């Protein structure tokens, strides 16, 4: 099984090197279950990445002008043939056993997308699944101590694109991330579209990986525009599966 790890990145060379180190160790721990290749997309870093500085990356793509997260991921996904795609933010440090847990969940052929359980450095939940209230998606159990949040994998409408494993067949069927999103919500869009076809989405919960979240400079500048695209396409078109008032179903 060919697993392509796509890491869009801009600047933050030191963080990228540590991210690559964790990703490589997670791949190595698979013990032959998948053959991993790592593609780094240099999304217009002020000082271009040099391959020699990132020997753990198998491929290095370079955009001289900044492009959207979607474009960077789509370009990375097209680099080499694959069976599985792992989209990984450069500020995610994968736990060594994270990928193994994600592959375990994919044993069900209808599971098309798997997320990873992510925590902030201080040990609180950054991501263990995305849920929806009437207004839109939000991170479930965000900010709660990870030790009190159950590790039971369950069906979800969406997982974060910060560490997202996708079957390449489904990715191709859906045409990848929609490039209309400047930065943000393209992951939610992909998940909702895949579920409309009948595929399942879940999040591997057995280990915690670190996510510093939103470290790329200028990232927030595009969020409102992305939110506008999301609202136009999806407002009122998703089921409500949670309640921020705490009245859980």
């Amino acid at each position, binding site marked *: 099984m060919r697993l392509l790890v796509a890491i869009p990145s801009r600047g933050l060379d030191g963080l990228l090197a540590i991210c690559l180190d964790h990703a490589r160790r997670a791949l190595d721990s698979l013990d032959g279950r998948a053959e991993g290749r790592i593609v780094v997309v240099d999304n217009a870093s002020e000082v271009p990445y040099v391959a020699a500085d990132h020997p753990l990356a198998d491929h290095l793509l370079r955009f001289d002008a900044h492009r959207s997260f979607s474009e960077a991921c789509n370009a990375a996904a097209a680099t080499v043939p694959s069976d599985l795609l792992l989209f990984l933010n450069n500020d995610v440090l994968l736990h060594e056993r994270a990928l193994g847990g994600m592959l375990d969940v994919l044993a069900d052929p209808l599971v098309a997308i798997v997320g990873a359980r992510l925590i902030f450095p201080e040990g609180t939940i950054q991501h263990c699944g995305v849920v929806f209230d009437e207004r839109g998606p939000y991170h479930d159990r965000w900010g709660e101590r990870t030790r009190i949040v159950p590790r039971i994998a369950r069906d979800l409408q969406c997982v974060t694109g910060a560490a997202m494993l996708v079957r390449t067949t489904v990715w191709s069927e859906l*045409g990848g991330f929609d490039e209309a999103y400047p930065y943000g919500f393209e992951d939610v869009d992909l998940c909702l579209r895949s579920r409309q076809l*009948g595929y399942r989405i879940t999040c591997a919960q057995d280990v915690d990986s670190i996510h510093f979240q939103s470290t790329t400079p200028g990232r927030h500048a595009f969020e409102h525009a992305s939110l506008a695209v999301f609202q136009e396409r999806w407002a009122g078109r998703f*089921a409500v599966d949670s309640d921020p008032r705490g009245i*859980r*179903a």
Partner: protein
Amino acid sequence: MILYCVPSTGIHGGIKVAYQFVDLLGRAGACAAVATPDGRASGWFRSLAPVVRRDAALARLADDDIVMFSLPHDYDELRASGRRLVFHCQGTDPLIDPILRDPDVLVLTCWEEAATYVRAVAGREPVEVGIAVADAFHYRGEEKDALATLAMPRRGREIARGLAASEPRLALVEVDGLDECEVAALMRRAGVYLATAEDEWFGLPALEAMAAGCLVFSVPVRGGMEYLVDGVTCHVGSIGHLEQQIARLLDPAWADHWRAMRHAAMARALGYRLDAQLPRVRALVERLGPPARRPLRTPAATR
């Protein structure tokens, strides 16, 4: 792929049951989605069901994909689509009789009276898939206000007001326009629920109130008599009978009766948990075969 067609996003029990059923189909390993006329989703209850626009999704179905529906008005249009039809029988309105007699339509029933109706009208055996109460309704030990009395006023408002007046200390709250979580929270804290929709095809709120630990007083209904057992899980009968029982609500000599009834009702409602319904839905998915577990074709694949 299973496409469950619903007519709208409105606050109607049948809509909620459809989403709940699609959720269960997903848990049972099927590929299923709710199809609405404009692709909009209902937001007044919790669900994970994917929602698609009906005409677009119907056009993408393969010949052996499955279309479910529960509203008889959809029958003619859906039959014309040429797909495998499954009728989810939630009521026993005579409008459904032609559907029940169509041998090409698989008929599912939610409750006993519906199954009996199908046998009587069409001489066929339906697939009994049951029905469930959302987890939000099951009592969790909240402090209850014994005098708080709930009723849904769309049908039987005057009956509710009359019954509540038979014990002046009761505080009647008419519940309408709230989302499911709000209704469940109210029920879990209320003492009494008045089910006042006469001849109701299937009164899910009475069962939800039983799950929430309310004492239920119900007018006679057509569906739901399998859990509405007079004197055991609730009181069901004429207005006079109910008034007589309500007059005893706060009588200390009857306290044990009410405690036992509340417990019996909650125990009965436990049989209607989503997890309890799941094995039947799994069996249905098995019966529907591989198309039920096959994703919808994308437009590209359709070409």
